[in-house]
């Protein structure tokens, strides 16, 4: 069953889109990773124009993160004050990113930059995940628990200190805004939620307790992807509502299945497979950038 995507101006199989949403939903439910950095490259592979894939994926992540954020909010595992600072940085970063997106699009270099970003981040995430899961497997065998908590002395020197009751911290507000800003740019240029940057940054840079990290990250993602969706829609006309909705239908169901599967299966072993998948996608996009193209001339429509 084909469906015509009004903004992407192409015809795609409905079951392919819902299925992709479902598979990525299962993976994100199982491993607690946001689906953005898996879904956006898959959309490139099925031929959705990168500009539309990125903007529509930001819209999908908004929906996919909503239920998780609600659950965390109910359990009070959200540091709202810290979240607000991250949102402040994030929305600014998103506005900056959308502006940059438009400029790159006009220059005809948008696809290149999006793909370079993906090669870079997928490469790093894939490698880290791979190393981490192998190390975790070894640790399970040795039956020891790794617990690391770093304290950055340079952070103590920064001004504008604030008290965060939920996180039990008294730190400068500058790092949170900067992290938020950086993730906001990623959200608008790559169509990701940025959880994969945000979560480690909260633990290792801000020193937040693990129990509030995921909830606060989801809280921030909702506002930032919401802002990104709105800005892309009003500036670049690149949000395809039909595409986002179909992915979301598959995604929310997949995420529920994934969460339940994750509880039953040994996820550490599966995590290696996910790492390999991420590295394979990185490799495929890298090939497109480095290997001589079949056609050296191209025509792009200006809108």
């Amino acid at each position, binding site marked *: 069953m084909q469906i015509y995507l009004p903004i992407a101006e192409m015809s795609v199989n409905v079951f392919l889109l819902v299925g992709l949403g479902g598979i990525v939903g299962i993976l994100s439910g199982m491993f607690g990773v946001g689906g953005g950095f898996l879904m956006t490259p898959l959309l490139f592979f099925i031929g959705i124009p990168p500009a539309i894939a990125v903007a529509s994926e930001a819209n999908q992540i908004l929906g996919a993160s909503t239920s998780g954020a609600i659950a965390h909010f109910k359990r009070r595992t959200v540091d709202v004050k810290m979240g607000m600072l991250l949102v402040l940085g994030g929305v600014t970063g998103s506005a900056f990113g959308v502006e940059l997106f438009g400029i790159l699009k006009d220059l005809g270099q948008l696809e290149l930059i999006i793909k370079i970003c993906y090669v870079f981040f997928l490469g790093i995430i894939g490698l880290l995940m791979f190393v981490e899961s192998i190390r975790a497997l070894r640790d399970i065998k040795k039956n020891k628990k790794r617990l690391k908590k770093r304290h950055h002395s340079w952070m103590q020197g920064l001004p504008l200190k604030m008290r965060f009751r939920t996180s039990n911290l008294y730190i400068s507000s500058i790092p949170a805004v900067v992290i938020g800003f950086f993730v906001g740019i990623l959200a608008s240029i790559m169509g990701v939620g940025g959880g994969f940057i945000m979560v480690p940054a909260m633990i290792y840079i801000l020193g937040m307790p693990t129990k509030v990290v995921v909830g606060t990250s989801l809280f921030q993602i909702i506002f930032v992807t919401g802002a990104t969706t709105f800005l892309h829609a009003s500036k670049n006309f690149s949000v395809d509502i039909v595409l986002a909705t179909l992915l979301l239908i598959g995604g929310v169901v997949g995420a529920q299945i994934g969460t339940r599967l994750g509880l039953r299966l040994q996820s550490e072993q599966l995590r290696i497979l996910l790492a390999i998948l991420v590295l394979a996608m990185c490799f495929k996009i890298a090939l497109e950038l480095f290997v001589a193209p079949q056609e050296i001339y*191209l*025509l792009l429509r200006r809108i």
Partner: protein
Amino acid sequence: MRGLMLFLSFLFYQIGFYPALGTNVPPTLVTDLSKKIISINVNFSGSKFHIFGAVKRGFSQNASIDQPPFDIMIEVIGPPVSLDFFKKERLYGFWINKKIQSFNSMPSFYSISGTKPLEKIVGKKEKKENKIGLFEQIKASENLAIDDNILSKIALTGKSKTTYKQESKPIIFLENTLFSTEIDLPTNLVEGDYLVRIHLIRFKEVLATQEDIIFVKKVGLEQWINYLAHKKPAAYGLLAIFLAIGFGWAASIIFSRKAY
């Protein structure tokens, strides 16, 4: 006597033997399209339409201009769009796009087909005089001098394979009179008027050109979404946000029995 003469001359005229008139009356074309409107709806996945017609001979059966062999050429030209033409170049190992030229009104779609391989039907001179061919169309609509070198490269771009194409199947042409062909339209159609030009050609001379229009438009949901996205982008952005949150919320209610 006068009456008989008139009658005879009328008769001769009718059957085509009247010598003074009609010696150089060229044949004309009678054509039609199988569709006048193509609607892009929710399950649109490209479209096809037929062009068909007949060669209507003039009155002079003797005049060579009115005798076969004829050839037919059909062009379909999409509404104009702005395009940038890039060349991929290698920079530090990456393949980047280097802009060569901007065009303000290029055909968004172009298809050409003929009863024979195109270069055997018309020459360069006739193409230029009658504005036949993609290059002539671009030159006519762009209003600026374009390097022929660049034009020939446009024909090599990936876009040209679906958007600018030379139809592989020849036009069906029966008894030098009836012809028909089918044009495939891709899914990424730009809305607007598609000009259909049908040329009747004999020994590289264009005898007649008939023009028709097929109209492409988005309808129903597609039209509404497209309108909202481009004319009311803020409302569209808000709709996208509410829709996504609504779905997420609904999912959390449905699955809340055993959530997290």
